């Protein structure tokens, strides 16, 4: 980045900083590990007069998202942050927020869903929201979490999108660890996000609107199709937002997913979030040994960039999809997407599903190397494998 400021910061700090720089009109949030410190840092910025926002310290996550819907419908730029049980509790209203086309930006510090209760990372919380109608962006490190939080604001407010955007970062792995991150100057962020003008704000008392009315079977279906259409507009708008962001930040975002040493790879791993960092190290090591391996990491999970990912994987020998959540009685959520993306193709890679990292279980370099080794076996049985679990 050209004019940035390199610092050693935690995931909490970079997200709070992004929120400060966006300067939302309203933040409504409730504490939960491992999200709490994001809102704590932000609240301190407010207390010190560094940002002009109303913070609603609600009595539950259900009320957090409910207040966000009220605020965003009112015409205010609105943000929240949560994790795990908090997201589960607000889920009813996450669906409503999407259907009411409220451009709320929410951080999810990924944490396993109960039970058993566990405060550590997996993706079961955000995956439970994958059919809610919110856009989902998965960050690999503090830098991406910071940049996606900024980009999310523009994406959410795009006129033919107007949907909530969930930006996830792995709980503890990213939220609680200090990493080198490069922050933009405040003015650059202000210029990038610009002013928000809601189209039909509830607070326009001279032009009263009825928001959230009751649909019978004669209209419900069409209203859902409007959400479908909005979701379909996301990829193009996200690319435009990336272009604009690159201009400001000097970054080089140019897609809906990241590929790492994929061009001539025979074997590929697909996964989301912070484990990509470990996987890249493994890819480099195996490449040094002459193995043709690569990594694909979706940034955007909803809407799922199926077409592009299909093109990136189609010529591979074998692909392992590593899911950090379960869909009991079925395959992992990410695997299902990849499998669906490739389903129409006659000639396609062998495809395998692994589950890893549930409830914060570590995944190490040798375990990822083992996956690449598995892929080399042309007779490898197709079944779910659980990395590092005692069975």
């Amino acid at each position, binding site marked *: 980045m050209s004019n940035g400021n390199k610092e050693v910061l935690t995931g909490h700090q970079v997200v709070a900083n992004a929120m400060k720089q966006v300067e939302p*009109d*309203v933040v*409504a949030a409730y504490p939960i590990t491992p999200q709490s410190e994001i809102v704590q840092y932000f609240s301190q910025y407010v207390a010190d007069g560094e940002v*002009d*926002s*109303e913070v*609603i*310290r*609600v*009595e*539950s996550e*259900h*009320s*957090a998202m*409910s*207040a*966000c*819907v*009220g*605020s*965003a*419908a*009112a*015409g*205010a730029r*609105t943000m929240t942050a949560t994790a795990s049980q908090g997201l589960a509790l607000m889920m*009813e*209203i996450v669906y*409503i927020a999407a259907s*009411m086309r409220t451009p709320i930006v929410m951080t999810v510090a990924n944490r396993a869903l109960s039970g058993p209760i566990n405060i550590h990372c997996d993706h079961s919380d955000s995956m439970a929201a994958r059919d809610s109608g919110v856009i989902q962006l998965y960050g690999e490190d503090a830098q991406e979490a910071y940049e996606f939080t900024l980009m999310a604001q523009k994406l959410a407010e795009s006129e033919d999108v107007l949907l909530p955007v969930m930006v996830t970062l792995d709980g503890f792995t990213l939220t609680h660890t200090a990493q080198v991150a490069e922050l933009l100057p405040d003015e650059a962020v202000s210029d990038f996000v610009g002013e928000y003008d809601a189209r039909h704000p*509830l*607070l*326009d*008392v*001279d032009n*009263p*609107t*009825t*928001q*959230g*009315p*009751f*649909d*019978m079977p004669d*209209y419900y279906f069409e*209203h859902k199709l409007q959400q479908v259409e909005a979701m379909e507009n996301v990829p193009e708008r996200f690319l435009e937002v990336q272009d604009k962001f690159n201009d400001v930040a000097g970054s080089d975002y140019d897609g809906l997913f990241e590929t790492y040493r994929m061009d001539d790879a025979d074997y590929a791993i697909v996964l989301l979030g912070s484990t990509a960092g470990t996987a890249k190290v493994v890819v480099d090591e195996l490449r040094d040994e002459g193995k043709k391996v690569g990594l694909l990491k979706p940034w955007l999970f909803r809407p799922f960039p199926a077409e592009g990912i299909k093109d990136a994987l189609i010529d591979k020998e074998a692909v392992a999809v590593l899911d950090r959540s379960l869909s009991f009685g079925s395959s992992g959520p990410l695997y299902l997407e990849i499998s669906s993306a490739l389903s129409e193709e006659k000639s396609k890679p062998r495809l395998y599903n692994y589950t890893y990292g549930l409830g914060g279980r570590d995944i190490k370099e040798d375990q990822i190397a083992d996956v690449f080794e598995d892929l080399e076996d042309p007779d490898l049985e197709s079944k779910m494998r659980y990395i590092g679990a005692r069975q």
Partner: protein
Amino acid sequence: MASLKTLAKREEKERKFESGHSLCSGCGLSIAVRTILNSTEGSVVASNATGCLEVATTRFPTSAWNIPWIHNAFENAAATISGAEAAYRSLKRKGKIDKETNFVAFAGDGGTYDIGLQSLSGALERGHNFTYVTLDNGAYMNTGIQRSSATPKGASTTTAPAGKETYGKERKRKNLTEIVAAHEIPYVGQASISNLTDLSDKADKAIHTDGPAFLNVLSTCQLGWRIPPKDAIKVAGKGVDTCWWPLYEVDDGEYNITYEPKEKLPVEEWLKPQKRFAALFKAGNQEAVEEIQADVDEDWEKLKKKST
């Protein structure tokens, strides 16, 4: 203090709530809503919990509301309006809007006493500048007359019906007005659709109070109460005149009884016209009626003590 004539004139000038909705004849909800909205000349932004009022007034693409109105879900009318109110404060401070606006949340007893109690309590404690109105008809009427914690002792509902072994709900209802008063907010009022000037005065005070205000309004349901639609006002009035539903306010912590019946009627006068209480008058249930009377007497005496 606005007379009924003034309220009617205001409505003629600006119809905040239109006719043509599909609420039942004799429904107390529209009576309460119109009275409350006409009690202020200022603009009002409303949130509405899921329930009869929401369903019957906003069937897409129609709306009975000529004011900004938002429905989010069942249990969160208070949290939703608190978001809108916070947005208003923020945008006003930043100079992005300039008009003065009032905020009112409407919800039924199910949406308040039960599923929405936490959302209400949180919004009251946070001190948002809004008025929360509970339209209390004593059961989940929209879903088919199921028991709520506002259902009166002795009432038969579809989920706590009268039968061979019981006359219906055997527990006394929750005293929500006192629960809200315990939040020590600036204004709390208990009102009824039978006493419209009293309701209007309280709405006026509540809406123009700085900070959170609350109104608990007794509202009829002809289906749930099993009364003729034409008797709605009369029957609600019996609730007031028996002191089963006293009209009072807690204004900055000070209790005032705003209407004292000339003659406190026996509670049977409230119970008998409503068929939901019919089982109370069958052989063997006299004791329950006496218990209800004893509860009313005790609560009334307590309230009188607080108001002196």
